[in-house]
């Protein structure tokens, strides 16, 4: 039996608006964690309760939500919603109250604040900027003959901008020639013009940094227009979700994309498969991403870490928790996690996967190994990289 009032964990999270797809998926994972913990008797013998409010994908609602969570609801712990904008909007309030802040997918959000109780779950590592293109370029340079030219394209938004900045840096270091470097505005519908303009510059590599609807738009346009590049893909958010995978189906073959998890033999962390099974049962009901590869395991792991810290320090004291989290290497369903001083993963683990052998639009195939072959980093490599793009597309 549990004793004492529940331990309350508060957050604002996008349940409506443009970020809701990820927000809801993350929330579901966290709710599963709460259920798991409560089934085992809670934390410190107390039940765990999530207190969450819809931030409507609008960061302007966030300061109020966190002030309310901390001052009025008096939650014991806070975690962030998805993503950078919302995290940063909460930072002043959270910092003022000196709360430990576990965050979901903040891009270098703590670089300016240097808050020592900030911990970030996306495995970007200390230098997020360059990480999203590192795998891509690394694999690209392994091709024979070596590529010489690259096209960079991405959306006019935070993540794509940062990923492109990093890509430019990496490309420069490698001495590749940039033949196309343009961005497209949010809510672009027609990507054929973009792809045609890229094609006319004849690049060896095409690196894309995009959000879900444009990721799909780009892939489709590439198939419709045709592209002779040796390698195509990059930091394309959305290709991790079942919705786009099933929509695009065989069009994905050959595309390389960054990912955070793939059901490959190299990624069989403790508990993750069990988690995904349970997640999928719920997700189908709620209209949330039914695969759950992208954000869900990390959201679950986030609370695993917080929970472990509470149990280990036997305390809800933010200072103690922060110290413990800094000092510990955690084994989670998302693998082994250790944080560096600014709260990023000490070792980045951005994967690069290549879609191979996709046939039809059935969702089940994406749960199998061998369809999203990990080609980078070497530690998790699960198959061979196929190139050029046209050949890999078969």
């Amino acid at each position: 039996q549990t004793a004492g009032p529940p331990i309350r964990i508060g957050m604002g999270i996008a349940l409506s608006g443009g970020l809701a797809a990820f927000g809801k998926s993350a929330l579901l994972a966290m709710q599963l964690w709460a259920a798991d913990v409560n089934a085992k008797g809670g934390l410190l013998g107390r039940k765990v309760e999530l207190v969450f409010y819809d931030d409507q994908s609008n960061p302007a609602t966030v300061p109020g939500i966190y002030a309310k969570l901390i001052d009025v609801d008096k939650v014991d712990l806070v975690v962030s919603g998805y993503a950078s904008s919302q995290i940063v909007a909460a930072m002043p309030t959270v910092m003022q109250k000196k709360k430990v802040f576990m965050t979901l997918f903040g891009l270098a959000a703590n670089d300016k604040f240097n808050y020592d109780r900030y911990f970030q779950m996306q495995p970007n590592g200390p230098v997020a900027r360059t990480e999203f293109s590192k795998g891509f370029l690394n694999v690209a340079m392994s091709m024979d003959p070596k590529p010489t030219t690259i096209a960079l394209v991405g959306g006019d938004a935070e993540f794509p901008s940062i990923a492109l900045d990093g890509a430019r840096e990496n490309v420069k270091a490698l001495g590749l020639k940039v033949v196309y470097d343009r961005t497209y505005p949010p809510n672009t519908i027609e990507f054929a013009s973009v792809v045609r303009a890229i094609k006319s510059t004849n690049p060896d590599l095409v690196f894309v940094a995009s959000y879900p609807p444009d990721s799909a738009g780009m892939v489709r346009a590439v198939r419709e227009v045709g592209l002779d590049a040796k390698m195509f893909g990059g930091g394309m958010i959305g290709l991790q979700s079942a919705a786009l995978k099933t929509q695009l189906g065989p069009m994905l073959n050959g595309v390389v994309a960054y990912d955070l998890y793939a059901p490959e033999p190299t990624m069989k962390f403790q508990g993750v498969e069990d988690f995904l099974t349970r997640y999928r049962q719920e997700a189908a009901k709620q209209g949330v991403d039914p695969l759950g590869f992208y954000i869900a395991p990390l959201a679950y792991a986030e609370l695993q870490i917080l929970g472990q810290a509470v149990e280990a320090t036997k305390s809800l004291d933010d200072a103690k928790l922060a110290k413990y989290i800094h000092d510990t290497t955690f084994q989670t369903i998302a693998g082994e996690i250790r944080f560096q001083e600014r709260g990023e993963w000490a070792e980045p683990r951005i994967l690069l996967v290549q879609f191979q052998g996709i046939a039809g639009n059935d969702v089940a195939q994406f749960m199998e190994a061998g369809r999203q072959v990990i080609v980078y980093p070497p530690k998790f490599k699960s198959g061979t990289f196929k190139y050029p793009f046209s050949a890999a597309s078969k």
Partner: protein
Amino acid sequence: MDFSWDLLLNAVASGIMLGGFYAAVAIGVTIAFGMLDIVNIAHPAFIVLGSFLAYLSINGLGIDPFLSAGVFAVAGFLFGRVFYRAYYYFFERRGDDSLQGLAFFFGIMFIVEISLVLVFGVDYRLIDLPYLARTYEIGVVQIPLRLAAPCVAGVAMLVAIQLYMSRTFTGRAILAVAQDLEAVRFVGADPIRVKEIAFGIAVGSAIIAGVLLIVIQSVEPSIGREFIGRAFAICVLGGMTSLPGTLIAAMILGIAETMTSTFFGPSWSPAVAFGLLLATLAFRPAGILGR
């Protein structure tokens, strides 16, 4: 980008295809906003509703949405009529001007959007029609069916509605009703019924535009917001009350976007497209085919 005829022709072709789809999006705005003076800011929300109906059609019932679109459009038409009745009852009957309705439609927009979230969830939805996965080539110009089919459907819908407006009595009465509601009675027509039918057509067209949207790209409940600006801009650029004007304006916007995208960098295409609108308004304040 370096110039080439190949790129130019393709940019124009893409622009036209995009324009055809934009036209479908803007038809309902031209009818409701331009002709009936109803500032239906929730129009894009109705479009997204149409997308989800299409999704339901193929994934729930296994029926090609191009086949069921007609049924949905009729449902939208009837819904639009009921909806207009309510709008009439609460606003027009009392003689309030259309501005009053604006807040009302903002409310409707949220209601539709969140209802979709609650029913369908927040995930991106799309439909896959294998027969549209083809790309035809005419000379150097590539015509992907995924864009061409919605364009053709959009233009066909516009032409059909335009014929209805100019050739039928009810159609002409729709054009008249915005100008002098009471006077429509003097020719023996019931203006409320006329407006009801017109609004029904507007909503019906939104539903079809939604079907076309989900053929073109993936859709989530709040995506309609992105179309508010474009839809209203096209309506105004076209001259408010003119469907042919709407078509021309949609094409212009589409071509401006693809040309900018091809030759100057896509990032500037909204600025060019909407700058064009501003310039047009500055030199021809009544729009292209404004009366």
